[in-house]
């Protein structure tokens, strides 16, 4: 029973990180209809910048803020230089460009910081909390993960629902031509979408870094599971990203805990197939009319 609880808690904390990655992917998908495969590598890169700052004895929160800010700039730069020129061209091209960027980012990080795994100091303790007499697999840092992802979700929700920029973003995502005719500067809105997504991706990178062997490749699998989560939840739905992340995190944790770690990705695949067979566009898909 205790084991089950711990496996569940492990699933929740990794699920929240998957959710942050999924949210980043969803924001970009909503804005520009492409899946950003460089998302994890961008988060890796900004986390390495934060790591270098931490090495220079900069405080954690300053480094944290700097990574998010640099992430945002990186998102804008990538959208402007690499994605905008491909707007309206074949759908696959920008996706391949993001794959190219993923490879370049990892290569540059490997050149600058080397292949050696490092430890990224967390802001809070990772030793388990005690509930009564038993200790559980949930630490202050896990609480920080859950809280920061929920805050991120809430900020995004407020932004979309209650601000003009959010309204413009939704308009530009769902009906770009109409939005353009109504005076929305669609290009600027798309850039904003990438910027916000890059912040979410950087946050995911910062949340993963202290839990793993921190090196140039540490975000690869988080991208894969984040993508799985986004697909499970529905690529258009930020709420779906959160739910998809939790479902994926729990599913992977149960498979790993009870069946074996080699089967984790296939467990995620089974989960994804079951969901997609019932709902081909994810749990929170809008019931879209068939395009003719």
């Amino acid at each position, binding site marked *: 029973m205790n084991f089950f609880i711990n496996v569940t808690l492990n699933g929740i904390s990794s699920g929240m990180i998957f959710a942050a990655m999924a949210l980043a992917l969803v924001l970009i998908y909503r804005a520009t209809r492409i899946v950003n495969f460089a998302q994890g590598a961008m988060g890796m890169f900004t986390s390495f910048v934060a790591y270098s700052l931490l090495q220079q004895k900069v405080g954690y929160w300053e480094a944290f803020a700097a990574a998010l800010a640099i992430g945002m700039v990186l998102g804008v730069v990538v959208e402007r230089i690499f994605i905008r020129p491909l707007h309206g061209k074949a*759908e696959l091209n920008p996706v391949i460009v993001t794959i190219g960027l993923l490879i370049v980012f990892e290569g540059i990080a490997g050149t600058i910081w080397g*292949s050696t*795994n490092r430890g990224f100091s967390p802001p809070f*303790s990772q*030793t*388990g909390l005690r509930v009564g007499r038993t200790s559980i697999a949930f630490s202050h840092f896990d609480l920080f993960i859950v809280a920061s992802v929920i805050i991120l979700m809430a900020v995004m929700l407020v932004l979309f629902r209650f601000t003009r920029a959010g309204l413009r973003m939704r308009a530009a995502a769902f009906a770009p031509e109409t939005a353009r005719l109504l005076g929305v500067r669609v290009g600027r809105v798309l850039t904003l979408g990438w910027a916000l997504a890059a912040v979410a991706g950087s946050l995911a990178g910062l949340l993963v870094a202290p839990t*793993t*062997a921190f090196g140039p*490749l540490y975000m*690869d699998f988080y991208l894969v599971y984040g993508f799985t989560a986004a697909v499970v939840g529905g690529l258009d739905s930020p709420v779906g990203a959160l739910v998809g992340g939790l479902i994926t995190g729990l599913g992977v944790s149960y498979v790993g805990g009870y069946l074996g770690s080699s089967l984790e990705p296939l467990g995620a695949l089974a989960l994804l197939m079951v969901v997609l067979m019932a709902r081909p566009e994810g749990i929170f898909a809008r019931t879209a009319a068939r395009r003719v």
Partner: protein
Amino acid sequence: MKQATDITVPSQQRRAKRRSLKAVVAVAAISLIAAACSSSPSSSSSTTAAPASTPGVTSSSITLGATVPLTGPAASGYDEIAPAMNAVFAWKNAHGGVYGRKINYIYYDDAYNPASTATQTRKLVLQDNIFATVGSLGTPTQTAVQGYLNSLKIPQMFIESGCNCWSDPKYPYSSGWEPPYSVEGKILGYYIKNHFAGKKIGYFTQNDEFGQDVVKGLDMEIPSSDVVSRQTYDPTSLLSGPPANQMAALKAAGAQVVVFATIPAATSLAIGAAEGLNWSPQYVVDSVGADSPTVGPLLSIIGKGKGLTANTALNGTIFDDYIPPEAETSNAWVQVEAKLLKDYAPATYNKYGLDGNTEYGIALAYTFVQALEAAGPHLTRQGLLDAIARDGKNFITPGLVPLSYSSTVHFGYEGAQVFQYEASAPQITVPSGSWIGGKAVSPVYTTSPGAGPVNVYSGTPPPPPASLVNSA
């Protein structure tokens, strides 16, 4: 996803033209392959054109090759070994080489992917015209080229892996160097049996040949009724989170002693995950994943609280080693190894210092230099094999036990010593920080990889020869 190319229907005439264009492009493609191939630096046969009949050997040089992971998930730590080996070869070259021949060591990245190992090994053989491979890393990677190298009678020397498979009579040109994993497993199991009798034992091992062979050795010594849980992990799964569930299962099973057969990253993440459960069992770690300068930096992830640091988390951890741990700075071997690395691979020394990986590389390369010397001035591939089989037992190396090489035994050491990390021991200071050092807690043991007793080794390891100490 839609492609624009086939949409407009071309006229009859344009279609004909496109057809001929296709032929032109096909021819162009082939000629480009030719151009592409010739633009890469082609075979170095011109540079090694010498009367010597043995490939890779001239009157003034010996060309050696290796494939190692320099990129990819296995690169961490293991990318230090080949540069460290090169320090020994550079030292030897600076002192006249081996019978006047300078060693030229070429190593390529295979990213720990056997398909890439196959390609890069062919590059070493066919293009770089090597005499032998030395210090190529990995069990799956070197399994891929074992048949190839043996069929060409190219020595596949001192493979960086403790698989028993290098001592297979089917493959006489292959040879390991470090102890077989099952030898280390047996020695750790023997120690556990004698010091933790009646305790509940748990295993946490890598789901591959390395982990399975260590478990084989452990199981020969530890009564199976004492083993309460056997957890494994897949190396790739470390990329999607720490092995928290495995540690939770070991804790739930009540394990008091946890044996690791892990790579360093897994050791760190698993200890971190156990701290996440507020659980600190007695750890017993195979040498592969025990090096504190390699494991320590990742352990800083435990973070604040309880005053935990990497060094306090590792304090008390038991591990084995077959060369003197780098913490023993009074050991003459450790001193000379550090000096070699500092003087002949300064970039590597400044980046990593003498840690478990660089020490391993130096010890291995120093062993190989002796093998080359034993093979005499008329160097041939068969001569090298014969020399190792004949004289290998007498090579003077940093090893705690003598080498076991013979015509049938193709792995280096069949022994190890058990150590324990202790706060009071001298620390290991490398560029990444000061890390906890170990103290010997057992005599040196020897044992065979298969069934057979664990014996106390009564000899004393030889000090480094004066020729090395004075010239390094």
